């Protein structure tokens, strides 16, 4: 059975004064109906750009999708016209951005921002839209929703604003929600509330979620499938259980080892990955991670490893994936 979303070899490049920045460099993956998939990586790895490529919001004119296909419910999104993609964007595929304050329009009321989406997609009349907006706010746990409809974003806390973003995302009954760092700007106890909410709503409405984050803990709790990105490529892909129990890429291993964990005895020293991520306009030959890699062999500097199967449904882009320590 075909997946809800099939991304095939997408390449999104930017033309800058430094040269060509390969923000997304040959990324392929599937998201199934109702699944929660996580895209994990640090700043600059290409995860946000991947999401923006799916809904074709890559900043122009410097950036453009130069290759690949993105099939959503059988249609290739990259070949659709602008009016056609606009019908899908915000309705079938919704996006929640990282900073709730800058994603909400500060001069429009909360109510207006929700009803605007509903009216734009022709789903409701003005009266129906207002009722639906109130219902949505109640659904995302905002107390006193009717009153809140007339509030402006600055009158709400960060957690509340993020709930409004979720309400807007859900308003047109999407099949897929792309959530870019949905809780990074929020306090830990509010993060927990928001993630619980997203999980519940996903199960209730059968909405697939793609969570983009650098927080390995968030991913462990809420994702079914995890994909790790580095320098524009997916370097590991596995179920959440597998990726934590049995990481098969030195970068994933390095990330897991460098993070202090609440449930383990305190180690004397953290084990950080040495060096820094590469500049995307001058990637090294061969594997992009090789210069920082503890396990690199000669081949790594010469030839970039393909993403290949190293276990049941477990993929890794590493020449020495099988011999890595557990």
């Amino acid at each position, binding site marked *: 059975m075909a997946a809800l979303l099939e991304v095939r070899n997408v390449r999104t490049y930017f033309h800058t004064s430094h040269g060509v920045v390969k923000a997304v460099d040959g990324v392929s993956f599937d998201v199934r109906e109702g699944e929660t998939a996580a895209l994990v990586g640090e*700043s600059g790895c290409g995860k946000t750009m991947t999401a923006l490529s799916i809904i074709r919001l890559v900043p122009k004119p410097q950036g453009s999708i130069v290759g690949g296909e993105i099939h959503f419910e059988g249609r290739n999104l990259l070949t659709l016209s602008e009016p056609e993609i606009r019908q899908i964007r915000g309705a079938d595929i919704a996006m929640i951005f990282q900073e709730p304050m800058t994603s909400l329009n500060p001069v429009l009321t909360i109510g207006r921002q929700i009803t605007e989406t509903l009216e734009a997609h022709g789903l409701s009349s003005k009266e129906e839209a207002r009722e639906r907006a109130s219902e949505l706010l109640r659904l995302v746990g905002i107390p006193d929703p009717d009153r809140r409809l007339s509030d402006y974003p600055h009158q709400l*806390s960060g957690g509340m604003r993020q709930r409004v973003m979720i309400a807007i995302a859900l308003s047109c009954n999407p099949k897929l929600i792309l959530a870019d760092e949905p809780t990074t700007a929020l*306090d830990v106890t509010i993060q*927990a509330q928001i993630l619980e909410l997203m999980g519940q709503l996903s199960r209730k409405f059968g909405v697939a979620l793609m969570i983009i984050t650098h927080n390995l803990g968030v991913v462990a709790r809420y994702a079914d499938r995890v994909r790790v990105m580095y320098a524009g490529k997916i370097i590991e892909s596995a179920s959440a*259980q597998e990726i934590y129990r049995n990481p098969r890429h030195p970068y994933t291993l390095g990330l897991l080892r460098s993070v202090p*964990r609440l449930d383990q005895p305190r180690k004397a020293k953290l084990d*950080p990955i040495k060096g820094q991520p590469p500049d995307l306009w001058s990637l090294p030959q061969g594997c992009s991670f090789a210069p920082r890699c503890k396990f690199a062999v000669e081949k790594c500097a010469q030839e970039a490893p393909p993403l290949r199967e190293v276990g049941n449904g477990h993929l890794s882009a590493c020449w020495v994936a099988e011999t890595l320590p557990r």
Partner: protein
Amino acid sequence: MANPRITSNGYASNEHLVEVRGLRKYFPVLRGVVTQRVVGWVKAVDDVSFFIRRGETLGLVGESGCGKTTTGRCILQLDRATEGEVLFEDQDLTRMADAELRPLRRRMQIVFQDPYSSLNPRMTIGQIIGEPIRVHRMAETDRDCRDRVAELLRVVGLSPIMAERYPHELSGGQRQRVGIARALALEPRFIVCDEPVSALDVSIQAQIINLLEDLQERFSLTYLFIAHDLSVVRHISDRIAVMYLGKVVEIASRAEVYENPLHPYTRALLSAVPVPDPAAEAQRERLVLKGEVPSPVNPPSGCVFHPRCPIAVEECSRAVPELTEVKPDHWVACPRV
């Protein structure tokens, strides 16, 4: 006299380097354009007391708006307290004028959270690190100053040639190292680290934390480590103080806070921190707090946590709980534990 304590870096001391007593910092809420009147107060820090022993790291945790950054700034007199005392090496800083404070400022420094806004973009790295040295006349000649800057850069793991560069040419992690070098320039005894790694990527965070620990051992430093990331705080701190809405709700050793948290807020905070392991996560108890953090302009009566507290009773809305030592060295502000 109690036995001297051996802290994690081997430095034995029972001496209180810093002591905060009844600290309050209220910010006025002003209304009006032509004339301004005070219509309320933001009680950012509301009667906070604790001490920091020489050589140890006290972690100060809490979520946004709890008052932890303001507390750090009040200790260093970057903000002047509304009420209360701050003792540094037994001297009350709150009673001192700026001129008296200046020589003491050499001994207490700060590393800021945002490596992007805490370095002057128009100065070179060498000028940024050299500035405190010049202001406090710690170097006799320009040459001495440059040598000292080069040494500091090496100490924080950067090459001395970085001195010629400008902040925008450095990565976040490198800039944070510069901030640390600047804090070390005057050979301080005490450093307030205000969320020093929150703005950095996960793999760089580990490098900076290791660096801070190495420096603490090497230079016998005392840290107040302010953060909201409980995993990071646990790693670097000897003792931890938990704050909520301007008050300290719990203070104890690291082991006690993480293995045996007593205050309902501390327990909820710990439960909310996700652990990178699905198997472990599936087994953990989840205490999801209802509601939002109230505004510090209008804090709840009695115990400020009572509206969200799972074990609150009526009394909690009336009486402000005192921070009490319920076990040796474990203090909690809750009569119900």
